[in-house]
């Protein structure tokens, strides 16, 4: 049984530069690009996805990562610029307008690099995980504006919050927090995937299997699975109970393209992936097969995201099927919806 998705709408040239990151909230999609501003499009009011707010001069060198809390209230998002500048934004629920809440401090200590690459927000929007080029993951308490934990992945790491191995790890290109708040996972340039137990403050799993740079890691909504993907071109699925590598999702045929982005749908049945070759795929995780492929663009996709399920339909007669969005080098936002009635 294959699933069918239709192109619902494309916001052409949404950004003046390549779109590097997307983050959905229950009613909006935030997008970031190589230009300095962030855009917010409404995802619940109209099938044309109108622009509702533009945050100008957010990141002078452009922005490469933004994140929201999956399954969260949608009042916070975090953006990271190419200069390493990391900003936390809050939404005023009454006006539905976003404003800067806090800029993460850069460390005084010169030895401790201030760079931030990937970020993830906990489901309650209270904690932020941020990775560095030397393989560490810092966890911040967003409300108290304080760093509460640092995970090391370098040589001799594993004790958690360790000293003595600072900055010896491989570039942490991806990070995620499980919705139950229990785990942090990071994906690295050297192909390493690490899982940390947040309560114990230490590494619980060091997962091998892909051996090539990891560009995306994602916990399933039920927190029982972790998906990781990257230059290997396949998606590895790990079980979080015992840290076992339980499945690989891969397309048959030609040598697969680098996967830049993955995302679980709300039920945890499907995974969405985007690649450098411009292909969006939907995978049935239980059966381990690709159920839909879209290639509207041949240029690189940098980010693909499911939109949270909405209670009401976007337009009369449209049904309540799931939607997802893809963006990348063509600077446009392309929205897809599940074909109903089949």
């Amino acid at each position, binding site marked *: 049984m294959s699933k069918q998705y239709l192109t619902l709408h494309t916001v052409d040239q949404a950004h003046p530069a390549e779109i590097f990151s997307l983050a959905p909230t229950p009613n909006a999609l935030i997008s970031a690009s190589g230009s300095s501003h962030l855009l917010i499009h409404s995802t619940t009011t109209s099938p044309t996805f109108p622009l509702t707010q533009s945050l100008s001069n957010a990141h002078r060198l452009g922005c490469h990562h933004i994140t929201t809390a999956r399954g969260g209230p949608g009042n916070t998002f975090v953006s990271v610029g190419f200069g390493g500048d990391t900003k936390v934004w809050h939404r005023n629920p009454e006006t539905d307008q976003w404003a800067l809440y806090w800029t993460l401090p850069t460390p005084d200590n010169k030895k401790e690099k201030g760079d931030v690459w990937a970020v993830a927000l906990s489901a309650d929007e209270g904690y932020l995980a941020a990775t560095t080029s030397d393989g560490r993951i810092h966890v911040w308490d967003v409300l108290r504006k304080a760093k509460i934990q640092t995970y090391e992945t370098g040589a001799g790491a594993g004790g958690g919050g360790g000293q003595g191995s600072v900055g010896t790890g491989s570039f942490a290109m991806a990070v995620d927090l499980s919705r139950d708040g229990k785990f942090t996972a990071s994906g690295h340039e050297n192909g390493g995937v690490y899982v940390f137990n947040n309560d114990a403050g230490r590494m619980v799993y060091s997962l091998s299997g892909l051996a090539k740079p990891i560009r995306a890691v994602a916990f399933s909504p039920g927190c029982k699975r972790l998906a990781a993907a990257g230059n290997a071109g396949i998606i590895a699925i790990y079980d979080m109970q015992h840290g076992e590598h339980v499945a690989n999702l891969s397309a048959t045929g030609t040598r697969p393209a680098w996967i830049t982005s993955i995302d679980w749908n709300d039920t945890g049945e499907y995974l969405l992936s985007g690649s450098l070759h411009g292909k969006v795929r939907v995978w049935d995780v239980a059966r381990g097969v690709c159920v839909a492929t879209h290639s509207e663009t041949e240029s*690189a996709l940098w980010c693909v995201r499911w939109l949270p399920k909405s209670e009401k339909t976007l337009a009369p007669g449209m049904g309540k099927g799931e939607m997802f969005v893809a963006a990348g080098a063509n600077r446009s936002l392309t929205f897809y919806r599940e074909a109903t009635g089949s």
Partner: protein
Amino acid sequence: MYFCPIRNQYLHPPSQPTVTNSHERPSPPLEQLSPVRASSTRVPHNIVIVPQSHSSDDALSKIEALFETIVDAISVGSPITIPYRRSTNAQVFDPTASASNPRDGRHMDSVRFPGRNPQELRRFEALFRIIEISHEALLSGTLVTKRNIYYQNMELFRSQSVVDEMVDNLAFTLGVGRNDLNIVATAKGLVAGQVELIMRGGSKINCAESSDSATFRTLSASRYYTVSRAGSGILVTVRLCDLFYSNNADNYTQGKGYPDLATRKFLATIHSVRPRLLMFALVDFDPHGISVLRTYQYSSQRLDHEERTKVFGLRWLGIRSSDVLSNTVMTQDCSANSQGSQSSQDLSSQESIAYSVDGECIVRQRPRSRRTKSHPSDYTAPLNERDREKAVSVLRDICGTTRLDATEREHKLELQRMLMLNIKAEIQAVDDFGDITNWLDERLLEHSRDVNSH
């Protein structure tokens, strides 16, 4: 055939260089290239004379006059004295200074033989050796690099800086420019192609014949600049200076294919006398590659005051992310950006190439074929921390400008992609088992068509 070093001399105002673009005649007879001929009424249209501000004094006659006094001194058995003025700060050989000249900040001094002490003896020997080398170079019409002088007798000179300073002081003492002594700074840039340079002092450099050990030897050895389907051209490469590299680990970035002032002035001069000559740069796909490119195009901040160092017309031949990623990915969006159909390419981090072709050349048949490298990971390397820091600093530099032009927007985009992909690639990534000529042909023709269609 070979590359020859760009001579600083060519670039300094007192010289009388001419640029001869002889692409129509692969082996131009030498007599057509002499300065005399060039200034006569029968100037062939392809000889360009770079205007000069003033002419130089005759260093040769001054040196020979000096030799005469030495011979005279020997014949009567009196001590030999070589006049020598040096700067106040330079106390390399003899810390005891004599009368100073407050006007120019240099001490009036002389070096005598036999010396008053062992230091002076060595100083005499070193100075005499330099004068001798310069005299020889002037007589033969060749050029000597300062580094070359140092290696003539490392024990005598002890360090490169001694030579550098002595040469400068000697020129100062004789009242000539350093280049008048036919002594030049060690060249970083190499040039090969259908061009002949006529230097001040009359020495000629035929860039199709001169030799040097060159990076991209295969390109010069195969005479790519004559056989390119894009037309004949001039190839200029910048190579890493090994000594500088190892001695200044902290400043290593400076050596990574960054063009020196002489190279940039050379290109800028060519551009100013032949504006229709298209110029292309081929650099690595890494932060230094783009920084090298920007040094050509926008000069460096430190040398902002220098004139004629910016090569505005320089086009970025590559390599870009699209060249690296595959032949299909990203090409679509490349054409969407303002730079049109340019595609990417890369260069070794130690080298950069500038290639110019005559804008009037006839574009020949479209070349066939593409390489079949299938996957980016086959020929890319991950960025290291320093690369990422460098990329961010170049990005910062670009974004510091209030209004980005199309070229800078493209630099920015490629740097962002580089960081996102976390990869870099050298020029070799686009070659075909070591042969880059097909790739170059394709790209040069694309660009030529681009220009001709406008």
